[in-house]
């Protein structure tokens, strides 16, 4: 090795050492907090994914994309509903390739059921912002899984007890022929029956039914011996069902449904066909909380439409994550500590007071009963009853 080269390498070494010493004097800037967002951006749930992403970004915008001194960045991937393997693949990509700090999202219960094991194996904190698969916070629960939205059971169960007390003791159920539909009706029956109710007829239809006529005729027939219809439908099925309900002259027949069927996203499409229907849901845009008024006004101004339940859930999920980062001052090295902190986060959001059940790490839900009413020329949901403190029972033996 030449003299000149040895001199050069010594010089380089010196520069590096001086640099290290200098930087040791002040704390290194904290790296960005990378949040993986797993939502459907294609297929039938694409507009849910869009709505949730808009609300998430709207909140992070409002806090300048920083919390607890950490800059927050999003990496988005398509959940790929209805396939469930896509969600698992994208989840692994988040963990292994992007090395994200936390994951949030998932709309479909099917994706969530496929993800519970990967979440446990990856030991990556995942905050579920929609999917209601009960098992995720029951027998399949894990310390890394939090849910800020709802479990399917919570809404149906809250509604069942209320229906038995207020609408009558004999119910006809009408729901889609898939797992979430059955879970929902079972949750309804779980509290409807102990309260003295009885389900006299169960009617179910295939997902994606173009024509509800045969079912509506059966409902009409069954209602000769019943007091109320309980119904679960979502998406395009909900639009068709609500409109055909009116077309067949069933308006006025007592009906209560899972609120997704007549939520803020469906209402502009079905209009006055939904008048008289009573729904149960954890969010409706007409809630009177100041936090909600502000949320609705901001969302309307930014996106030119009324926010729906999906947007509200994603918005509160963003608050939840930011609050957790603030509480640990951005120091997320101790994941155990971060998770303990997350269990205690509480704040006031568009849906009311946000609080998790530390046992299940699932939200303690406030369920709103609302009725669709005609107000002048517009059709609006009016909240008639607030059912508070609905906890998922967790693992039941």
């Amino acid at each position, binding site marked *: 090795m030449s003299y000149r080269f040895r001199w050069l390498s010594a010089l380089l070494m010196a520069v590096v050492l001086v640099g290290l010493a200098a930087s040791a004097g002040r704390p290194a800037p904290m790296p960005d907090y990378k949040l993986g967002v797993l939502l459907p951006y294609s297929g*039938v749930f694409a507009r849910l994914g869009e709505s949730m992403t808009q609300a998430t970004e709207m909140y992070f915008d409002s806090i300048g994309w920083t919390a607890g001194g950490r800059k927050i960045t999003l990496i988005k991937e398509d959940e790929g509903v209805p396939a469930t393997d896509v969600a698992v693949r994208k989840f692994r990509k988040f963990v292994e390739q992007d090395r994200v700090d936390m994951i949030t999202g998932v709309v479909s219960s099917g994706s969530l059921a496929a993800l519970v094991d990967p979440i446990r194996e990856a030991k990556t904190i995942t905050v579920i912002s929609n999917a209601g698969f009960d098992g995720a916070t029951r027998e399949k629960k894990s310390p890394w899984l939090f849910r800020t939205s709802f479990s399917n059971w919570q809404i149906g169960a809250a509604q069942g007890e209320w229906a038995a007390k207020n609408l009558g003791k004999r119910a006809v159920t009408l729901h889609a022929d898939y797992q979430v539909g059955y879970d929902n009706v079972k949750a309804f029956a779980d509290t409807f029956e102990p309260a003295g109710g009885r389900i006299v007829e169960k009617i179910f239809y295939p997902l*994606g039914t173009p024509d509800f006529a045969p079912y509506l*005729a059966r409902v009409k*027939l069954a209602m000769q011996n019943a007091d109320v219809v309980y119904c679960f439908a979502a998406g395009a099925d909900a*639009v068709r069902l609500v409109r055909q309900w009116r077309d067949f002259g069933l308006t006025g027949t007592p009906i209560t449904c899972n609120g997704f069927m007549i939520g803020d996203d469906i209402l502009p*499409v079905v209009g006055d066909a939904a008048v008289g229907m009573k729904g149960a849901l954890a969010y409706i845009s007409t809630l009177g909380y100041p936090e909600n008024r502000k949320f609705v006004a901001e969302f309307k101004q930014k996106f030119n439409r009324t926010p729906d339940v999906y947007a509200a859930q994603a918005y509160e999920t963003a608050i939840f994550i930011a609050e957790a980062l603030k509480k640990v001052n951005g120091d997320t090295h101790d994941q155990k500590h971060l998770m303990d902190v997350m269990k205690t986060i509480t704040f006031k959001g568009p849906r009311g007071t946000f609080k998790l059940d530390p046992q299940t790490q699932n939200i303690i839900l406030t369920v709103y009963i609302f009725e669709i009413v005609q107000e002048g020329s517009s059709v609006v949901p009016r909240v008639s009853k607030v059912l508070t403190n609905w906890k998922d029972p967790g693992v039941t033996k």
Partner: protein
Amino acid sequence: MDLSFLSLQFLNGMAFAMTLFLVAVGLTLIFGLMDVLNLAHGAFYLVGAYIGLTVLKVTGNFWLALIIAPNAVAALGYLVEVLVIRPVYARGHLDQVLLTLGLAYILADLARGIWGAQEEALATPVLLAGSVAMAGLRFPLYRFFVIAFGIAAAVALWVLIERTRWGAMIRAGVSNRTMARNLGIDIGKVFAHTFAFGCGLAALGGVVAGPIIGVAPGLDAEILMLALIVVVTGGLGSLPGSFWGSILIGQADTFGKTLFPQFSLFLIFGVMALVLLYRPSGLLGKPQL
């Protein structure tokens, strides 16, 4: 389950059948003449329904939507035939199937880009909004209109194919393409017109069914599958076949859902399989040589 209940279900079945007919007849017409199985047919239905929706929102006039949407989609179909499908006539069925399937995806995605992913529904025309009482139950007026419209369309199509010069050219093209060309018929023009006409019929179905079925992403595939079942059951390429096939499938679906709800998903496939077992080329299809 008394007689009035069953007759109501029969009417429901007819209304559904006539919707199916409007979609299936375009598909069968194109196949019968051009020997092309157009898998983009459902996408033309979807685009037709969306155009109808837009016209309805802008003008508030359902009847205008019923005229504009099929014509617009027919024009689109004409362009597609001339620019995309014509070059692959000589390339066999597999290439055509791949091409039209690709076309279906592109059209459906374009529709999503233009009209968004929100589920929509066409408003029922005010004139037909009510329902009439029938033996204790009610039946929507609009569905009577759908039934009447479907039957009228079937008669008009039959007259068009059997009694007009254009129909004679189509029939000539169906039975012997080379001979028709030698007789001086511009078969390329007949093909393009028929393809456009078939696409227009799909769009017509989209608008007519719009107040009942609505319009949403994914509907194209649902409709295509139903139309294929009808066409295969009725006999590929047969106009009366698609009419009777629609009625058979529409009624089987409606009564199946009423009487055997647990088999409703499978039932129409069962009917199709049963028909094919005894008549391999469908109810009124010509036996394949």
